[in-house]
Structure formats: C-alpha cells, structure tokens
C-alpha cells in the first residue's frame, strides 16, 4: 500500500518489565509500542491467534473490543519500522480484570486476502464483533462459527467503513417485494 512505515520515537518504545530486543521491544515475539500511554502489540498475521492465546494465558482473559480500521491514504500511522504495513488493520483490545490492565493488538491485514484466524475459540465474546468487522471491512475470520452479516442487510453489497466506499453514492437498498 501507499503507507510508509513511520519511525517510532525512542521514548515510545520503552515498556517496563518486557524483554528488550534489538531496536524494538517485543512480547511473545511481537513488536511492542506505547501509544498515548497504552501498550500496543504488532504481531504478524499468522502469529495473531497464538499471541492472543499467549496473552490469554498471561491473564488478558477478556476480549473487550475488536474492530477494523482502513488506512487507505493515511501515511501517518504509528508503527515500528520492523512491521510491514498493509491497508487494513484489525484492532483487538484485551482486558485483564485481575490486574486492571489493558493491551491492544494491531494486526496488519492485506487488502488482497483480508482473512485472519478467528479468536472465538479463545474469546467467545468476539463473535459478534468479528461479524461486525466482516460487515464493515470485508475481513474474513477463518473458523468463525457463524460468519453471517450482523448489522447490514443480508443482501447488502460492499463494506461501508472502507475508505473507498463513499457516503451517499449508493441508494438505500430495500429488499424486493414480490408482485410489484
């Protein structure tokens, strides 16, 4: 994509108590950054499921939020240089209710094959949110138990929250009524 990786400031890299790596900190093999005081992990797409499992074992047992983001035309995203950028991002916010801490996982999802593994086997609560991300961005979740539209009508064409889906271009779609 058009995104060029933005170098991360040195002060944005430090996370206390994590394994120091070369240049960028890592946790469970994923790059760690700090964004506005919040810990963010940047796993590879194929490491994503294992990372969520590892974090679950660490105590991050609640998937509090899952959503997509489209970075088409946005070259300002904060991401370590070691992570190759893609058009879409899958953003998962995890919560540890025992230690009152949060972590955010940002997965780069390519436009050509926007498919990632589902995490509903670890966090059943992610089911509705993954369906929503599928509706809005066309992300496919491999192994999802019920990958049907949740907010959009069954016969809706397109993915509204993509940046190239413009507002007001497509008229309101009503289901066909027979005999009219």
């Amino acid at each position: 994509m058009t995104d060029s990786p933005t170098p991360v400031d040195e002060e944005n890299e430090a996370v206390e108590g994590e394994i120091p790596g070369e240049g960028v900190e890592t946790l469970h093999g994923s790059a760690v950054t700090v964004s506005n005081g919040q810990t963010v992990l940047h796993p590879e797409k194929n490491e994503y499921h294992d990372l969520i499992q590892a974090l679950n074992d660490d105590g991050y047992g609640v998937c509090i939020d899952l959503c997509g983001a489209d970075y088409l035309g946005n070259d300002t995203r904060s991401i370590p240089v070691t992570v190759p950028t893609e058009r879409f991002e899958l953003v998962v916010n995890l919560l540890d209710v025992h230690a009152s801490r949060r972590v955010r996982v940002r997965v780069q999802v390519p436009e050509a094959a926007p498919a990632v593994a589902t995490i509903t086997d670890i966090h059943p609560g992610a089911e509705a949110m993954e369906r929503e991300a599928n509706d809005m961005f066309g992300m496919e979740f491999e192994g999802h138990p019920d990958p049907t539209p949740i907010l959009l009508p069954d016969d809706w064409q397109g993915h509204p929250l993509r940046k190239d889906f413009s507002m007001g271009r497509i008229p309101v779609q009503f289901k066909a009524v027979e005999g009219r």
Partner: protein
Amino acid sequence: MSEAEAEERALVVDPDDERMIINMGPQHPSTHGVLRVTMELQGETVLRSKPVIGYLHTGMEKTAEDLTYLQGPTNVTRMDYAAPLFTELTFSLAVEALLEVEIPDRATWIRMLMCELNRMSSHLLFLATNGMDLGAVGMMIYGWREREEILRFFEKVTGLRMNHNYIRPGGVAADLPDGWREDIRKILEVLPDRLEQFDVLMTGQPIWRERTQGIGVITTEEALALGATGPILRSTGYAWDLRRAMPYLAYDQVDFDIVVGTYGDTFDRYAIRLNEIRESMRIVEQCIDLIPEGPYRTEDRKITPPPRARIDESMEALIHHFKIFTEGFKVPPGEVYTAVESPRGELGCYLVSDGGPKPQRMHIRAPSFVNLQTLPHMMHGGLLADAIAVISSIDPIMGEVDR
C-alpha cells in the same frame, strides 16, 4: 431451493418433532425497540435463541468520519439515547488524549456530576421498563416520573432533555446555571422516599421475586468469556467497575460502593441497578460540596472557541473562532482507546487520527452490543415467558447496539 432439494428436506421431517422456530420482535413491545430474537421452542421451553440485530443501523461510525471533532459529540450522543452523556464523555476523553490537552478541574467535576445524574435517569428508565415488561405497569409511571425530574435539570443545564451535546472535547458546553445546587438537592430529597416505595412495590413483593429470582442465571466465567460488563458482570458477584478499577475523571476522590449480586439472575440485575441509583446519589451529593470553581472548559483557543465578546475586539479571537467552526481543530496523528463505565457496562471509544480535523476512524465499543451475546446463554432451557424478563434485565439500548 429446487424441487429435488425440497423433497429431500421434506423426508427428514419427523412428525413427532414438536419443535418450532418463532421470531419475537422486532416490533414486540418488550424488545426495547427493534430487537428480534429467533427462538427454537419445544412447547414453552426455549431450546436455542439468537438475537437478530441491525434494524437501527445508520452507519454512525461512518458519519463520524465526516464530522469534525467538535461536531463529533452530536453524532455519538445519539447512540445510547438513555445515557447520552457517557458516549459524549468517552469520545471527548479520546480526543483529549490525542490532543494531550489538560481540562480544568471544574469541567472534570461537572462531567462527573452530570454523568452520575445520567446514570440515575438511565437506571430509573430501566426500572420503569423492567416493571412494565413483567406486568408491574404502575412501575412504568413511577420510573418515568422520577426520571423526568432529572431530565428537567438536564434541560436547564444543557438546553435539551436528551442528546445533549454537552460534554465536548476541551470541557463542557456551558457552566452550571444559577441555583443548580438547590435543583439537585430537591431531586436528592425526593428520590430516597421514592426508592423506598419501589422496594415495597417490587423488591420485597412475592410475585416480583417469583418472576425474577433464579431466572436467566449466568456465572462470572461465562460473563467474562462473553465480554459482558456492567450490571450483568456485577450480578455474578464480580466487583468490576471501571470507576474503581481504572479511575477516570475524579472518581478516585469520591466515596462510593460497588453494588454486586450473588446469583447472577434477573433479580440481582434488577437490584443492582436500583441500588446503583443510591450510590450515584452519594456521588452527586459529594460533587455538590467538592466541585471547584474555575473555568468550565480549557482556555486553549485552538480547541475552545473564544467568548463572544472577545471576537469584537480581537482579530486573533475572530480567526480562532472562524477556524474552529469552518475547518475544525486538527488533532495530532495517533490512535487511542478510552473507556468509561456507562450504566450498561464498559463504553469505549477507539479513535484514529491522521492529523486532520476529522477522525480517520471512530469506533464505539457499545456495551449493549456485546452484552446482547449473553442472551442465548441466559435464555437456554428457560420458559418463553421468562425470555421477556431476561431481555429486559440485559437493558439493551438498540441505538447503541446497531449504531
């Protein structure tokens, strides 16, 4: 389906199979708007169920990408229309986190005061609808009456009864009006008696208990696995409240208790909300005394429009005013997630900025949307009549579910 397929399917129908699939809603009065629940019934027992949503989806997250940060609250306030101030709050906190702007103490306390009043009005609305759903129609009138007192105060402060657009990035829209302490004291004076009446009318009443106790049970583990927060999680006995666990605003400076249940049933969820009104009243009382003097919004002219009088005498003020209302203020690039404890659970806002005056991505983590996933779980194996009680006890706001 072709004819051959139809025949094939017809063969597997078991004549003794009395299961049937019915749709409840989306026009059913107890579904709080436009929730449709598809249920598989065996006689009166619910075997499986699935909430079908999306009837109220209006693409508010897409709309947010076309509004400036100052216009943003007008959009998000329409999501949870029973507790609009909380969505404004979480959005404003997200914008302020990206701007790295400090807001004045008075603004923080006004936000807290208004949010707690809003929590009271939202829970009173719950008591009204919960009573109505289960046949205590008198309760509907009483709950609405008490809520009206609070909405009247909101109208005085913000100009609107709902969808206030009061909490904005940088502070609040207006200072509290003269005599606000007396207005709130009047509400606080009336409410305790009324809540006692609710206890007599509902809490201690055998029919009410019969109808709600042991219905729609959920455990702590199940609630956490499904991402349920708010009164649903607390009803299982797990004291998780963001106001205590991850304090925001000035919640670490006020004294209040977290109300928890024991059994995770419909009655616990009812009782928690009733008692949370009492706790919110405690916080409001403390706010009256502790609220500091000072500006009610940040003095940063890049974010807050200048006072009207300054525009006549200062060219700079005029430019700031013009820039804020035409282009909007720019927010540094970055992404942030903020969360507050709404009456329904964790209300989060994930905001991505590309450095422009409009958000690149604005996502609201709606508690009702996630909490609704507990519905099939709670209804499983229960009676159809209890399904109404369970839906009601989740207290979903469909505007927030569908966004």
